[in-house]
């Protein structure tokens, strides 16, 4: 399996534990609450549940897919379709800090490709690895600390180029700023 191989290559701990077994009563209560927002069709809770799961566990493993499907009276393929469609979701662990560099027009023209390359170099990743998502985690450092990926517009075109580091927006990034930004993170 490509995915397992990748995990090994990145030196990440292979997930032997099944996420579904680590669910807490609070987590389940939150799930019920989320589903209650969609009285007409439970299916509409698919995306909220995926977000909830990924926020809680870091990614969604197959037990998660199957649990969510069963919870919403769907089949697992219905959930896997969504999970592989949206680049935000992943079926494997990403780095502790995810650096998301915007590559949409304004940022691209303001040099975000250079910025992203510098981020990769600063954390020790090959900047030329293509990443499409489809459920896989973005390129991640062997120590599991950083992931770097391109994202589409972060709605901050006025201060391009921008990046989302963890949950923080960083604006007007010059390639030369990057080493210092990364150093602060370490």
């Amino acid at each position, binding site marked *: 399996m490509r995915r397992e191989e990748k995990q090994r290559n990145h030196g990440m701990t292979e997930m032997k534990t099944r996420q579904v077994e680590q669910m807490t009563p609070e987590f389940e209560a939150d799930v019920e609450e989320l589903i209650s927002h969609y009285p007409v069709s439970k299916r509409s809770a698919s995306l909220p549940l995926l977000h909830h799961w990924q926020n809680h566990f870091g990614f969604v493993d*197959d037990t998660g897919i199957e649990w969510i499907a069963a919870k919403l009276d769907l*089949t*697992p*393929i219905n959930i896997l*379709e969504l999970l*592989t*469609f949206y*680049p935000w979701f992943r079926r494997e662990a990403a780095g502790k800090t995810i650096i998301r560099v915007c590559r949409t027009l304004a940022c691209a023209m303001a040099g975000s490709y250079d910025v992203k390359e510098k981020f990769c170099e600063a954390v020790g990743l090959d900047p030329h690895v293509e990443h*499409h998502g*489809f459920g896989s985690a973005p390129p991640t450092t062997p120590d599991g600390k950083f992931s770097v990926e391109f994202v589409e517009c972060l709605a901050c075109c006025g201060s391009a180029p921008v990046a989302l580091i963890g949950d923080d927006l960083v604006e007007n990034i010059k390639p030369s700023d990057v080493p210092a930004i990364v150093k602060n993170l370490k």
Partner: protein
Amino acid sequence: MSGTAVTMVNVQVDGEWKQFPKGMRLIEACMQSGKFIPHYCYHPKLSSPGNCRMCLVELGMPKMTPDRKSVLGEDGRPELSWSPRPVISCATEVSEGMGVRTSSPLVEECRNGVMEFLLINHPLDCPICDKAGECRLQEFSVEFGKGESRLLEEKVKKPKRVDIGERIVLDDERCIMCSRCIRFMQEIAKDDVLGFLNRGSHTTLAVYPGKRLDSNYSLNTVDICPVGALTSKDFRFKMRVWFLKETKSIDVTCGTGSNIVISSRENIVRRITPRENDAVNSCWMPDSHRLNFHYLHSDDRLKEPAVRGLESPVAWKTALATAAEKLRGSRPEETAVIASARMTLEELFLVRRLAAALGVRNVDILPRPQKGDGFLVSDDGNPNTSGAKLLGLATGRLPEIAQAIEAGRVTKLVVLGEDAADCGISETALKSLDLLVAMGFLANKTTPHATVVLPSSAWAEKRGSMINVKGRLQRLNQAIQPPGQARDDWEILRDLIALLAGTNGLHSIEEVFRQVAAETPALQGLTLSRIGDLGIQL
């Protein structure tokens, strides 16, 4: 229009005003008007997701005055204001005063553009594709494509030869993402295992890891796949489809009598596909039934008549004369006839005549109760139980007959199209019979003990009619010739009856049917040709 359940709406199709029931899909209204709209994702029996974009047409809506009344033209019809953008006709419902242009420079350009998009990542491996010859992508490329590629980039690579089910292989590169198979599995087969993974030009049809596309209806996805993405393992690489001869017939695996097309070439049946009949099977059929034809060409086929004690080859005349001679003058209570509800109405009618000629009361068919699936697999494993009942041959006397044979009270047995072993008769009992006449097309446990073996035709090798569990009279048609010296069942029975009771003037299957109809009130006035391809509800 009060009192009618359906409201009709006026729609202008290519300049002509017509009426259609409200709620009908626009593509159906166009097709009903004789305008062909190319389409991939639309299927009359499935929902409209509108994702292939091939059925784009120009749409006009009635012009409205400020007080929301339609502006009427000189002809009293609404004046239309045409939308500058095309719409998909599969997901648009007809409404009052709507207008549609199915052919215009804009529509032509749209089709051309959609074709170009669909072909961007298509591998164009038509020479080795099973779908070639009946592929919509191929057909529409000819009709609506540009004929050349402007693509310089590498095509996206996707999984090939994916074993997604017991009977199906998937080629993801050929898939054009119409989602017909996904919707079929959701809406008809009720086994939601297929889905699209990933996004954009990387979109890939897949089953959930660990799951399989192995529903008993899975092969219908191969039929409705407009390209060669889903192919049948059974038919894969066996035959180019343009060499196949198509014969309309019905399935005989169970009492449903699904309408089928038998595809054959040079006397070999290559595949069976469902034929649309909304009164019976819609557009579908179970895998177990459509693959149930390979025995037609098995080594167990009976090809020559045989008479115990005579060296083969035995002439038909000798075989029939031997059977007749040994049956003649036998006492009715020592004789029994076991027929089959897999026989046609015409054959069963002649069985009844044979029984009458022999004067026997010991007649019955072998019932085949089974567990149906509530859809197209019937609770009755016989295709013509209703026919046997109509002719009074389903007497329920079989256990009694079997007992009489075991006890040695019945010493002469005629088995037609069945295996006596399935009827509760032991091989020891068969061996000790004075006379055993076996007619059938496959060797079974009965034939080795038969005094006379009469090789007959299988369902793909003959014409005739059957009545399904719902009382629908339907026709079988002949796709191939029976092997060797095997003959049509009705001819064998006719000749045997003629030897026992004199000639009866039956020279064709049509004549037999006419006699059946004449003697059966339920079939009054019918002829074999009048049954038609879709059958008649009795």
